[in-house]
């Protein structure tokens, strides 16, 4: 809370500074509000001043050539669809160039970002001009270009090294994300594919459709939402507990070939998931090897519908996920388990506690205390566990009651299917935003809890 306010006050300070600098500044400073970089050029910061000036010229050129149109385009997302006109002379249909809602949205968002970025640079240049004026008043010279470059590798080193990563994140994560978030408020689906058809803003229609308005979609959403949570709880906690038991068994005193056992289990997770999981789906197929094996052994008459029965498929994916996840937990918890003070167990044994009591009363509380953040990431990871579901069951068996989804589909795999198979981008984005809300809700709740837990006495 405190952090947030300080950020806000800083923002308001720089805004009030923007105006007061104009009032207090001299002629050159005032002029740099119109011509960027003037306060640097006339005050011995040539390179810096030229950069500011260049940025301003480029910005004006960009805005006049396309930027303004791009931003205006955001309002309508295009009015003229691509059309066909009969060409009498050549006896063919010619396509007339229409608007493309998607590109208009993309470039519009980009233009907004450019404007915001420019405003920041503009504010910085004005502040710079004012500071130069103040420095000269007390007979100090503003730092020249060489000094600036040196600072980039010392005090300002973080600016230098953070610029490339952040530019990449901006271009390949933030920009696409903002674009897709906006898509959730449009009707961009199969019937509105530019350039043939245009899409437009529809407000919260997609959200209301997903949550209550559209009977099929909202039913699908609710069912998949519940299943996603059930799946995440089972997948996280079963893996956690059984993986820990596995680790305890391997690390127990008197067990031989510890390294051998560990390597076997690690090997199974080292095999790429798309290989092992797709293989699993073939093994568990109605005519797959496991059914064949059971039949040959005479254990069953008819095949077991591991992945084709709605309920059994859910059990199967959870069980197979144990196969995937237990070795991970084993790997991660081994080290922490060995850190549990041995005398805790010693005294428990003297008090007559069996292995089960020891596990429940000593191991579990200790591990839960240490690995809560790991558990949260696991839980969130399981809500978004695309690989296991998609590769194993493909979301199937399909259900006619659902909108483009199967019985074991999670919200994420539904999102994927809506995007790739259905091209229902607006619905997919809506689901994505809802998943985001769910994930951040759980993170916030648990982080608040753990931060209060951390203030308590250390364990033991």
């Amino acid at each position: 809370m405190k952090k947030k306010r300080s950020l806000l006050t800083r923002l308001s300070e720089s805004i009030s500074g923007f105006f007061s600098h104009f009032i207090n500044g001299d002629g050159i400073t005032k002029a740099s509000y119109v011509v960027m970089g003037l306060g640097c050029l006339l005050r011995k910061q040539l390179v810096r001043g030229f950069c500011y000036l260049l940025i301003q010229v480029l910005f004006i050129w960009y805005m006049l050539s396309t930027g303004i149109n791009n931003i205006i385009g955001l309002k309508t997302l295009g009015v003229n669809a691509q059309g066909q006109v009969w060409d009498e002379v050549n006896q063919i249909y010619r396509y007339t160039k229409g608007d493309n809602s998607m590109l208009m949205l993309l470039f519009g968002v980009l233009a907004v970002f450019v404007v915001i970025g420019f405003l920041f640079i503009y504010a910085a240049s004005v502040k710079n001009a004012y500071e130069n004026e103040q420095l000269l008043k007390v007979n100090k010279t503003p730092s020249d270009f060489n000094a600036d470059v040196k600072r980039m590798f010392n005090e300002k080193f973080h600016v230098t090294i953070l610029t490339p990563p952040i530019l990449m994140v901006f271009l390949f994560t933030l920009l696409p994300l903002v674009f897709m978030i906006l898509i959730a408020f449009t009707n961009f689906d199969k019937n509105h594919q530019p350039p043939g058809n245009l899409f437009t803003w529809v407000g919260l229609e997609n959200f209301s459709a997903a949550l209550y308005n559209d009977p099929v979609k909202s039913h699908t959403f609710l069912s998949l939402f519940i299943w996603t949570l059930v799946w995440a709880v089972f997948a996280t906690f079963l893996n956690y507990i059984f993986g820990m038991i596995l680790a305890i068994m391997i690390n127990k005193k008197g067990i031989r070939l510890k390294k051998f056992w560990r390597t076997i289990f690690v090997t199974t997770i080292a095999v790429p998931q798309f290989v092992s999981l797709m293989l699993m789906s073939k093994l568990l197929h109605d005519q797959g090897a496991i059914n064949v094996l059971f039949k040959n052994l005479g254990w069953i008459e008819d095949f077991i519908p591991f992945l084709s029965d709605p309920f059994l498929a859910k059990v199967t994916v959870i069980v197979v996920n144990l196969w995937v996840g237990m070795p991970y937990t084993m790997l991660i918890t081994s080290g922490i388990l060995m850190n549990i003070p041995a005398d805790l167990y010693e005294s428990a044994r003297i008090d007559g506690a069996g292995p089960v009591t020891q596990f429940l009363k000593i191991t579990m509380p200790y591990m839960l205390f240490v690995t809560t953040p790991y558990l949260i990431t696991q839980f969130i990871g399981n809500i978004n566990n695309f690989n296991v579901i998609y590769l194993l069951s493909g979301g199937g068996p399909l259900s006619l009651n659902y909108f483009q989804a199967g019985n074991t589909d999670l919200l994420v795999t539904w999102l994927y299917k809506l995007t790739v198979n259905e091209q229902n981008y607006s619905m997919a984005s809506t689901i994505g935003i809802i998943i985001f809300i769910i994930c951040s809700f759980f993170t916030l709740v648990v982080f608040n809890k753990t931060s209060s837990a951390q203030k308590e006495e250390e364990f033991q």
Partner: protein
Amino acid sequence: MIRSQKTRTALGNTIIHIILGIMSFIWLIPIGFLLLASFRKEAGAYTSYILPKGYTLDNYTKLFTETSLFNYPRWFLNTLFVAVVSCIVTTILVLLTAYALSRMRFRLRRPLMNFIMVLGMFPGFMSMIAVYHILKAFGLTQSLWALILVYSGGAAMGYYIAKGFFDTIPKSIDESAMLDGATKSQIFWKITLPLSKPVVIYTVLTSFIAPWVDFIFVSVIMKDNYQNYTIALGLYQMISRENIYQYFTRFCAGAVLIAIPITILFIYMQKYYVSGITGGSVKG
């Protein structure tokens, strides 16, 4: 009394050995099946028996000789190229971000970290369609460079583990270097990096492995450009509905060939993996 306790622990250990044995067997079933199928002579994904009727090496050799439909060697080189380049770019970006956020104190540090955390909570491939169109604007779709950009584009967001490691390097080392007149840049290259070998190795390996196992982004970016497929997507094509009967055993052979190096790399880096995850989690 003592004796009975001894026999009890011995009995307990035997039971645990047996349980571990059975579990190992269950855990190894898919891998065993993969190996068997990769040497199987008869085609087909589903057989009415478990052990193959005949064994052959054809599945392996045909991967490299019959390349008209499924160009395995080409896919292998594609993946290797993407993996090497994106692993270099990713490692640089991750280390730079982690160093700045761990060692430097600046005004936007906290907001930036929170911002990255919030960004990370959106499902990753929600934005892949938009990424596709951004790449299209650059004229890069269906090329390997596009793939490299996608794999290393969000790299900075995975800075946590490296930051956790940098946090453990005592600040006093930096300070004494600074007293000797070293700049922040020199400290990073000459002091922090050489001390951070484990986390550098971890970052290199994880980013090297990613292109070998991902097929979601490749499928969105490459569409039908078979020549530029990576191994994972190519193998995935082999067991599509119309190909699975003929190519299943060859799929298994191809999978074995890439699973071996990845398994070795993973076993090699498991201790870095563990210290990365737990190191971050213990501190929260």
